């Protein structure tokens, strides 16, 4: 089901089945364009498939926005090893709640997207890695997989092509870091989710030491549409190099928070004001965290921009996972910065020192600051510490912690300074009387 009313401004190409009765069943899927794309793709060469994806300018919806066609082209052929297709449904980036809807309401669309990936690299096995908290979705996806086996869309000799493909769900057990692709692969192998050194990237050495396509759940879910309607049609929906639509998850201080499918490049302020009915209680907008908690915050005056990967990168932040957190004028930015760093300190896997220590020191300093025991020099200390972590950690979790922290200080330095005035100042310990 949907958990919020859709907006008339939405352009639904991957979420249009959400409103149908019994949306997760294979009969609904088959009656509504389902498994049409795979039939077409089974007659295509890997090169043609990858070219079509490149034309679509589909970019990864997991966070980094990497071009999907290019990613698939990195998978080496004829290594003699098996190959794998993995779906990242770990969805743990604060602010993000879209993969949940895709699996709940349209699991067959995801399966078809993974089938297309499987055929492209002639893989025989795929796994959908679903975060442990989403147990009900594991049941829904397992049921969909069973239906697909019954109807011959999974298993042996799919649609008479002579090609076999098996698909399974795999549960996580509570760890944000397992959304990072190489940590996910470690977790899939039954180990602690600690990232691997890159390169080699998963395309070359991924699951079980073999070439692997690894994409986000929404990325796969967009692929059947692309092959039904053509890459050019998909690209045309968005802005240059940012094809298609995106499930934007809007939370925080708006009248109508929700997940909305919007064309790439939809103006961010219009998302707040038109799609979501404006800031709630008639308050003024203070800031937007545009792409999940890892993305540096935008001040209200910076929000009049197209919501796509390149425009946000130009504004020195990112569209990331599509989680838009809207903050009104009453928001305590220091409290948001503290809650953000608490999250990263909790989720750091502890493998590399700049991340393990850096997140914890930032948490300690920000906690002290928030409690009113801050000092002028702390503001620069926070920024300096964060900037020293950037680019120096084993995986991007350290960057994901440092970027927003540095952003809060840079964009809202005045609020940090105001904190010093209103807070109970640090009282030096009384000097001991010398007797």
């Amino acid at each position, binding site marked *: 089901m949907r958990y919020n009313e859709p907006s008339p401004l939405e352009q639904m190409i991957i979420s249009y089945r959400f409103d149908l009765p019994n949306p997760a069943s294979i009969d609904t899927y088959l009656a509504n364009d389902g498994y049409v794309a795979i039939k077409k793709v089974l007659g295509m060469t890997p090169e043609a498939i990858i070219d079509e994806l490149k034309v679509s300018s589909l970019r990864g919806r997991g966070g980094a926005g990497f071009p999907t066609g290019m990613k698939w082209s990195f998978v080496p052929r004829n290594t003699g090893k098996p190959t794998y297709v993995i779906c990242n449904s770990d969805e743990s980036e*604060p602010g993000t709640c879209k993969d949940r809807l895709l699996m709940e309401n349209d699991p067959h669309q995801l399966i078809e997207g993974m089938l297309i990936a499987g055929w492209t690299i002639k893989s025989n096995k795929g796994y959908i890695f679903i975060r442990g908290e989403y147990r009900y979705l594991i049941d829904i996806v397992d049921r969909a997989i069973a239906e697909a086996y019954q109807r011959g869309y999974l298993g042996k000799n799919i649609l008479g092509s002579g090609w076999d493909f098996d698909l399974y769900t795999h549960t*996580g057990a509570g760890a944000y870091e397992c959304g990072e692709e190489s940590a996910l692969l470690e977790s899939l192998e039954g180990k602690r989710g600690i990232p691997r050194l890159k390169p080699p990237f998963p395309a070359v050495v991924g699951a079980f030491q073999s070439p692997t396509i690894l994409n986000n759940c929404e990325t796969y879910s967009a692929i059947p549409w692309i092959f039904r309607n053509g890459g050019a049609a998909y690209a045309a929906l968005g802005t240059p190099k940012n094809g298609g639509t995106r499930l934007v*998850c809007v939370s925080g201080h708006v009248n109508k*928070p929700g997940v909305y499918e919007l064309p790439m490049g939809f103006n961010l302020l219009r998302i707040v004001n038109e799609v979501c009915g404006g800031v709630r209680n008639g308050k003024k907008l203070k800031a937007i965290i545009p792409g999940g*908690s890892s993305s540096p915050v935008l001040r209200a005056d910076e929000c009049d921009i197209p919501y796509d990967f390149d425009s946000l990168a130009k504004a020195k932040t990112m569209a990331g996972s599509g989680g838009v957190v809207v903050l009104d004028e009453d928001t305590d930015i220091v409290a*948001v910065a503290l809650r953000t760093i608490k999250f990263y300190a909790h989720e750091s896997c502890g493998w590399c020192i700049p991340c393990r220590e850096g997140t914890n020191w930032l948490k300690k300093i920000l906690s002290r600051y928030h409690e009113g025991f801050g000092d002028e020099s702390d503001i620069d200390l926070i920024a300096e510490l964060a900037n020293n972590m950037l680019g120096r950690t084993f995986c991007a979790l350290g960057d994901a912690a440092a970027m927003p922290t540095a952003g809060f200080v840079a964009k809202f330095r005045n609020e940090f300074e105001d904190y010093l005035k209103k807070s109970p100042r640090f009282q030096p310990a009384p000097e001991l009387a010398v007797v």
Partner: protein
Amino acid sequence: MTFSPELEARFAKLLNSYPPGRQRSAVVPMLLYAQDEIGCVTQELVEEVAHRCGVTALQVDEVIGYYSMLHRKPLGKYHVQICTNIACQAVGAEDLWAHACKNLQLGNKEVSPDGLISLEEVECIGACAWAPAIQINYDFHHQVTPEKFDRLMQALADRTYSARPS
């Protein structure tokens, strides 16, 4: 150890899902599914999973501390998880958390004396747009006000709680 037939079927399916020689992959799912049935990860379970997956008990033991959903001690019959991450924080999750601690007389990761309820402050659970969000065991509850929270807790106490998400 013996498990329910459903769990045994799940284990059999799991062990078959991974490539030959890669049964270690089943360790984390097995621990989580078994924990749901027996309440927590016991030493006996560690050894059983090790045996079934063909790895050492140490290789099973070392993952337990890493995954926040795996517990060595039993939780309450109903594990109440309140998200206080940024999207929920923005719409009152910190007050909800304080309210929950006060009304349940429990702190983070504590279990009520009768074993009915345990409480945990959790990170984002993927319900940000419908915040503040909580999970009771695996059920999601959205837009949870303190009043709605109290009603849910009352239903737990009265044993009238239905697992349907709200």
